[in-house]
């Protein structure tokens, strides 16, 4: 690789890469390595959840019964639609449709905010029912007889901890897409260079997958367990 061969290279090509292909694949690999650390980050919480659910199955079923399953289902669908818009936005970038790319990214932002809005509504509802862990925690009505409220409280520690961390990832994702959408509108992305769209999309899909597991584990524990 000589300097002269770079003279006619793509303006986005950084000097330490051979060509656009190598530059793109390096970014994708780096993103996947970051996502592997994210898997372990969330994974520790999932393992903690598993241990306590195994120890206190009735209390976890009790906690799950206070969840609003229709709202959770709608929110899962909202996230799945947002994953679709992100996937389609990558295609729009690959074929160089600037307007379509921008619109799909904006749609993703709206869907992400919709998810966060529904989640906030659920949080407020839980807090109004004294289900937030802490000194004010109280079980006013129980579906299972003889449950230990403190162990149900533990379920809510996992619920707020895991969904809170997930929501934080959503907030960050919405922020990233706001920047990407503005740059897409400006025409920064072309079929030769759309790395930002691709790796931000990978992040968004990962956050979607986390929710795909959180939803059945937190909302759908069967009562007769």
């Amino acid at each position, binding site marked *: 690789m000589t300097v002269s061969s770079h003279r006619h290279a793509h303006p986005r090509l950084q000097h330490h890469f051979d060509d*656009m*292909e190598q530059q*793109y*694949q390096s970014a*994708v*690999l780096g993103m*996947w*390595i970051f*996502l*592997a*650390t*994210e*898997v*372990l980050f969330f*994974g*520790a919480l*999932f*393992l903690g959840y*598993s*241990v306590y659910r*195994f*120890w206190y199955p009735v209390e976890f079923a009790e906690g799950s019964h206070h969840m609003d*399953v229709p709202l959770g*289902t709608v929110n*899962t*669908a909202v996230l*799945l*639609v947002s*994953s*679709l818009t*992100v*996937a*389609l936005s*990558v*295609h729009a970038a*690959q*074929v160089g449709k600037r307007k379509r790319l921008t619109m799909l990214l904006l749609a993703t932002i709206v869907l992400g905010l919709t998810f966060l809005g529904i989640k906030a509504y659920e949080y407020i509802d839980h807090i109004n029912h004294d289900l937030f862990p802490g000194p004010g925690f109280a079980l006013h009505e129980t579906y299972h007889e003889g449950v230990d409220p*403190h*162990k149900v409280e*533990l379920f809510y520690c996992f619920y707020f901890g895991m969904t809170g961390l997930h929501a934080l990832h959503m907030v960050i994702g919405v922020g990233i897409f706001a920047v990407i959408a503005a740059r897409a509108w400006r025409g920064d992305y072309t*079929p*030769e260079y759309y790395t930002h769209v691709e790796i931000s*999309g*990978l992040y968004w*899909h*990962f956050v*979607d*997958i986390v929710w*795909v*597991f959180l*939803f*059945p*584990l937190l909302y*759908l*524990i*069967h009562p*007769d*367990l």
Partner: protein
Amino acid sequence: MSQHVIPPKTYYIIFAVLLVLLVLTVVAAEFDFGAANLIIAMAIAGAKAVLIVLYFMHIRYSLPIVQIAAVTGVLWLVIAGTFTMADYLTRGWIELPADEGPAPVQPERVDRIGPRPPM
């Protein structure tokens, strides 16, 4: 560039399957399959995750080194989970011979979230 361009039609099909799986997991949770409820729920979630990774995240068409990176995180989580559960899930399975006092391995022993001390 030579990236594999997945047509929108594929994305729409995967999205439709994901929605069907979502409905399936909500409906399945209404029935009592005993311990199988959790297995069914996790199998459906796993299937959704695999579809998202393979198509939305393009792993099916990615470079082998990217595919390896994608598997790495899950592999290490499985290792962490195996050793964690080999400890916690097997506590109390066997009575250990106690040299002094009552047998130390009792299910109650692992409950560290006891009632709060009086204020």
